[in-house]
């Protein structure tokens, strides 16, 4: 794996909620911010249920999409962690 130690179990940070909006698509709602998610980010976050490890998330994404690469998912999760959408500890 590239970028994240195994087993990393990503979860939404406290106070973060996902929603969809007819005008804007998929959104992550944070205490003071709204993050508009692209399709990839929305698909990854939909699998961040607090129990699935990154490996498991990549497997699940692979069932729906072609060419899912672990390093891309890790990079995306790191970016979402920086924006305080997800926690990556533990």
């Amino acid at each position: 794996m590239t970028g994240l130690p195994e087993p990393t179990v990503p979860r939404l940070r406290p106070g973060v909620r996902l929603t969809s909006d007819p005008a804007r698509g998929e959104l992550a709602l944070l205490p003071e911010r709204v993050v508009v998610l692209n399709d990839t980010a929305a698909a990854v976050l939909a699998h961040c249920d607090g129990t699935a490890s990154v490996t498991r998330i990549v497997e699940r994404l692979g069932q729906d999409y072609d060419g899912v690469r672990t390093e891309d998912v890790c990079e995306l999760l790191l970016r979402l962690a920086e924006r305080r959408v997800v926690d990556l500890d533990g």
Partner: protein
Amino acid sequence: MAEPAVAAPLGMLIELTHRCPLHCPYCSNPLELAARSAELSREQWLDILTQARELGVVQMHFSGGEPLARPDLPDLVGHARQLGAYVNLVTSGVGLTAERARDLAERGVDHVQLSLQDADPESGDRIAGARVHAAKLKAAEAVTAAGLPLTVNVVLHRGNIDRVERIVDLAVSLGADRIELANTQYYGWGLRNRAALMPTAGQLAAARDAVRRVRERHAGGPDLVYVAADYYDDRPKPCMDGWGSTQLTVTPTGDVLPCPAAYAITTLPTENVLRSPLAEIWYASRAFNAYRGTGWMRDPCRTCPERHTDHGGCRCQAFQLTGDAAATDPACGLSPHRNLVDAALAEVTDGPAPAFVPRVPVAP
């Protein structure tokens, strides 16, 4: 270059009431507060929340005054959440018992912002003008016990800024996920107390060092947001994400404002949601269109490379200090009115600060 089309708003600040058990000297609400009898009804608020969601609002910030002073708060929160909005409660914590916090969490509050005046109980009570510090610590406990994420908000000024480090330690011990330390912004009642609240340059420098130290000590801990003191900066704070760009405010009487402080701009017509639909106010009103984009700007903003990020600074501050809301924010070093800000700073000395005037509350 053509101005981009107006996008729908993301967030709405809901000022349910001006009533508040606290009398903070930096209160940014207007000098004239709305009486209880002038407040919108539960039914009117329910309709406004529905209109807001239809307009595109996904974040609803329930504030005031003290929103807990409204007995219909649980109903309004429940409605906002049913509409799919993110529900943020902005409170002093006074009256927020464990039971009420649990009920509000069940109804759909997503997040609580709790104000704290100081780490020192006596000073906290003095600033709030009421014995509330201990109740606030209990309220924080009630919030986290209800499983709600907590932001601790602290307004910094001459009387508490020396204790930034202790304030952050206290907020961390209360279980805050987020800590917002914001230097006072001078609007409404707060502008009246400017001389008493303005920190010295030395205090600010020490506070910046203290923030650096606590960031290191609590690395990996809560999100720590520090809002600098614009009077001491060379560039203004941005006008939100731009005037009429992502946020709107509805006051206790239904006035609809582009910014919570925009009541100060008396040259703009006052829009009210009892007279016009929220969508019409957002898209078509003169008040919301007045400072959208960059077309309204004059020099030095008009040609400034920073005009798309700071939007000329704060329109409300420009109006309050110069009488012209289209002027460059005087906090900007490029403003021809910077002398107004410098004159206020020149009055700040290391001697004892002048006494502040506690907020006069809503008449009963």
